[in-house]
């Protein structure tokens, strides 16, 4: 197997919903150029978009690091924010701590984490209340 690797990063600003979606659109372009299968691209983009919106909705700022090799993509989203007290509960469908303002914009329906879960081959969430959250999404290109 070849050891070709790629790495890139994006910065995310809390509260800036109108700009959300840029990283997923860039990752999509990259995966298309790499000839990754369409369904994998779709799943990855959905999971990433949900995770990005979570930072925008809940955190102050964050960094999205993308690592690609010939077998998989790993996306690590590290944010500075309030953190998640009960991750298990946060994963439940419909559970949301989003403010009414965020819900008004069409976000915060409590589908984010479970949606990420269904669209990622591996999802890991670690969080420290008062400091921030790290979300890691991993998808394999070949099953």
């Amino acid at each position, binding site marked *: 197997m070849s050891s070709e690797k790629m790495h890139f990063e994006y910065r995310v600003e809390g509260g800036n919903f109108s700009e959300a979606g840029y990283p997923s659109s860039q990752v999509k372009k990259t995966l*298309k150029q790499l000839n990754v299968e369409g*369904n994998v691209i779709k799943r990855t983009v959905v999971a990433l978009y949900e995770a990005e919106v979570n930072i925008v909705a809940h955190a102050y700022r964050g960094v999205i690091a993308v690592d690609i090799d010939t077998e998989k993509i790993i996306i690590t989203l590290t944010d500075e924010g309030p953190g998640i007290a009960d991750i298990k509960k946060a994963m439940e469908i419909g559970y949301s701590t989003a403010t009414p303002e965020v819900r008004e914009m069409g976000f915060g329906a409590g589908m984010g984490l479970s949606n990420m879960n269904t669209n990622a081959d591996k999802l890991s969430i670690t969080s420290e209340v008062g400091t921030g959250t790290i979300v890691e999404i991993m998808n394999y290109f070949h099953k």
Partner: protein
Amino acid sequence: MERKTDNQFHHALKFREDLCIGCSHCMNICPTEAIRVSHGKAQLHANRCVDCGECYRVCPVGAIIVEQDDFENIYKYNTRVALIPSVFSGQFPDSVSSGEILSAVHELGFTHVIEVEEGVEFLNDRFNEYIRENQAKKPLISPFCPAVVRLIQVKFPTLAGNIILLKAPVDVTALHTRKELTDQGIASEDIGIFYVTPCAAKIVAVKSPVGEEKSVIDGVINMNYLYNKIFKILRQKKEKSEVTGFSHLSEKSICWSLTHGESGHMTQGRSLAIDEINNVIEFLEKVENEEIDGIDFLELRACDESCAGGILCPGNRFMTVDKLRKRAVKSGDSKGNTPESKTGKISMNDPFLLENIPLGPVLPRSIIKLDDNMSEAMIKMKRIYELNRVLPQVDCGICGSPTCKALSEDVVQNQASIKQCIFVQKILEQNDKMDMQESIQIMKSIWSDNKLDQNSLKDEINEIN
């Protein structure tokens, strides 16, 4: 510059080298970056072209032409059917009646003249069924515009599965007509069905259809060609003959090929209509990112004002739309209550049509991928990134590629040299890495000897200086 695999993609748009002046207008407008300039002539990359016709609109010297079948081909058949889209009736001045148009088409040699949109009511029902039964694939995309179907295949491969796999109204009407005529005892090989097309993409849809083996249509006639022929006949006519016009079409059918023609009649959920190819691309980017939610049906048309804006329509597109809308209102007023005017002549559950209108799968054929091998693709991507960083991002097109990014990709795919960039040349010249002769040779290889000929315009240019 054509690649080996390009031959498999048929195109109706042809570039006439003898007329092309190498101005690069077409290269700069092409939404899929399918055109380069080399040796002073526009070159088409056939695998990237979707036949939208934007290049045809901007060519200042008419060097881009739309192929068409020899009109005499109609005489190979005893029964000659002209399938005319409703936008055709909107090309003529108000003073010309549909009866006059109809009789002129007959006079040209057709035995039957039928409007394409007769199949619309039948198809609308099938679309609604299809949307109901395929909720998982939202948003479903109309297969109506062949340029959009091809755009999705090459540029949005992940959305190829969202295209509704049913034939277009023209195919439904053609199938129905052929069946009706053979039922009357006419042998199928004696029937020639000719479609009068408003655009290049529809020609390609007939000549090399996506999702079916062979089209049910025997030949194509360009709308502007037929318009000229008919106008001549109308001019020479001394007195107006009293003839009946086209058979009755419903309001919906008349406006089907206009923007919102389809989207307004999908009963399931939420529908959106988008016209003009750059608008379509912008929207599909968002759909592909899953940023757009809750849309059930997308009507997407490559031309501004949809088929009224087709490149082969001689009339002004806004006037055409207005005329069709007026005709639709009139149609609603006159016979709105008879059952036939509501459903058309085609039975809603015609078993023959039901069996024959599904399309095979629309397969993606990505132009985006850099290599089939992923690690090769990664190496190329890194190289593109490095090359693009040294380019000026002016997108001037002097290198013969439409953008700096496109040049980087062409270099990596061994189809261009980074030295084609005039900024790179100037930097190399300053560092004594390139002499003037070499840079002029490169420029000549892109733009031809003529444009850079030492003696041409020498005195005139000196004078200005």
